């Protein structure tokens, strides 16, 4: 069979894999929802969780799609579609694909024409990210058991422990936003853009919090994160035009 990066058979294989992944999500969703009703959890809370999660996901999902577009130039549509729908994230996949293309002596951005180069890239991208999928089934029960033990030993510390993990991650992303900040002093004011976007998003979140209190409207809290995310992204456009 003559190879092409957009060969119909690739689309078929990718669609099948993605359907299985979709089935897994639906399966766990239905099971969790049923269990929630069984133990008497509030139905309206579950509905709010669903709508809020769905709304929050739209903008990041579109940005994943932008990643597919970027990688599609060299790899065609099916492979990036698969890699970014299952496990992959744009930064990982770009590096994995980029270094393999480099080793193959090919340019990033030019379409691959040989099947053996394509399969080389596909193997490197797959093996690079597969570790989580191997270890999660093997370790997650043990890790959760460890957390339970910690909780039984010292409940307050176990709460601090879980908060600390997420705060640690937030602080890394805060650092990331300021990674190029030093170059502001050498006159590159565009390095301020990420910081200003982050600030806009934080201010929007504060406004949502205030409105919730003033208007006594709890529903605003449920949509505060999607609002500050999309609002921050929208603000990025004028901020970039201004400083970029």
């Amino acid at each position: 069979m003559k190879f092409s990066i957009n060969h119909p058979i690739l689309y078929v294989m990718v669609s099948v894999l993605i359907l299985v992944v979709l089935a897994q999500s639906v399966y766990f969703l239905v099971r969790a929802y049923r269990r929630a009703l069984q133990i008497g959890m509030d139905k309206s809370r579950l509905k709010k969780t669903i709508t809020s999660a769905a709304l929050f996901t739209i903008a990041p999902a579109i940005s994943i799609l932008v990643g597919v577009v970027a990688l599609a130039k060299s790899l065609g549509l099916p492979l990036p579609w698969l890699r970014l729908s299952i496990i992959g994230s744009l930064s990982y996949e770009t590096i994995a694909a980029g270094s393999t293309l480099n080793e193959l002596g090919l340019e990033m951005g030019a379409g691959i024409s040989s099947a053996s180069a394509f399969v080389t890239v596909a193997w490197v991208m797959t093996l690079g990210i597969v570790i989580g999928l191997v270890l999660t089934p093997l370790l997650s029960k043990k890790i959760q058991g460890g957390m339970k033990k910690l909780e039984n030993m010292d409940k307050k510390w176990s709460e601090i422990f879980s908060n600390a993990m997420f705060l640690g991650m937030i602080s890394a992303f805060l650092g990331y936003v300021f990674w190029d900040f030093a170059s502001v002093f050498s006159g590159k004011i565009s390095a301020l853009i990420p910081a200003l976007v982050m600030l806009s998003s934080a201010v929007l979140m504060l406004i949502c919090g205030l409105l919730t209190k003033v208007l006594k409207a709890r529903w605003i809290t449920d949509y505060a994160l999607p609002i500050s995310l999309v609002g921050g992204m929208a603000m990025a456009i004028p901020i970039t035009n201004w400083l970029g």
Partner: protein
Amino acid sequence: MKKEMTYLDSVHRDGKIWGFTLLALILAFPLAISIIFKAVPEWGAFGRAILSVLPMYWAVGIIEIFTYIPMLGAGGSYLSFVTGNISNLKLPCALDAMEKADVKANSEEGEIISTIAIAVSSIVTTLIVAIGVILMMVSNLGAVLESEILKPAFDQLLPALFGGLAVVFVSKNWKMSIIPMVVMLALFIFTPLTSGEVGIMAPVGVIITLISSRIMYKKGML
């Protein structure tokens, strides 16, 4: 007497079945390409590329498992490690949902809320990307998504996400946040670290926060 299986046990059982099935399918994909198109990988390039990307990915992957699973819960983890985009999508989504519902990840209610949020997020992502791919085949959606007007918005997704999120979580734990935030700011501003290293720095931030919180807790400051 046979012990009755709890909900959590059944999640672990099903998670393993789904996880290993998907693992097999994902590995079958490049294998199938080889068979269908009668193509073998170029081993030299394959070996060199694997050596350059694998050690770092796997190291980060292993650390991610230990940091994310306690935060995501069992069902959430099984889904997240299949559908990916954890730090920039699944984890914030789950934590926000648990925060709103006022439940903790290690309780059964938390487990359920986290699973629901991550499942919905995975389904919505998969659908949007699939619809997008179909539209790209028949229209010039690709060009629209890459347009210069929209580009800044997508470039700034992470700052826009973590700004709002930081307000929620830092304001609740401000004492614990100060040390890691100062250390991370200093590391990123005054060393040659670039934006690409945030994936590696996240676990470093976690370890710093755990140590500083432990010390503060022992001294009775929290």
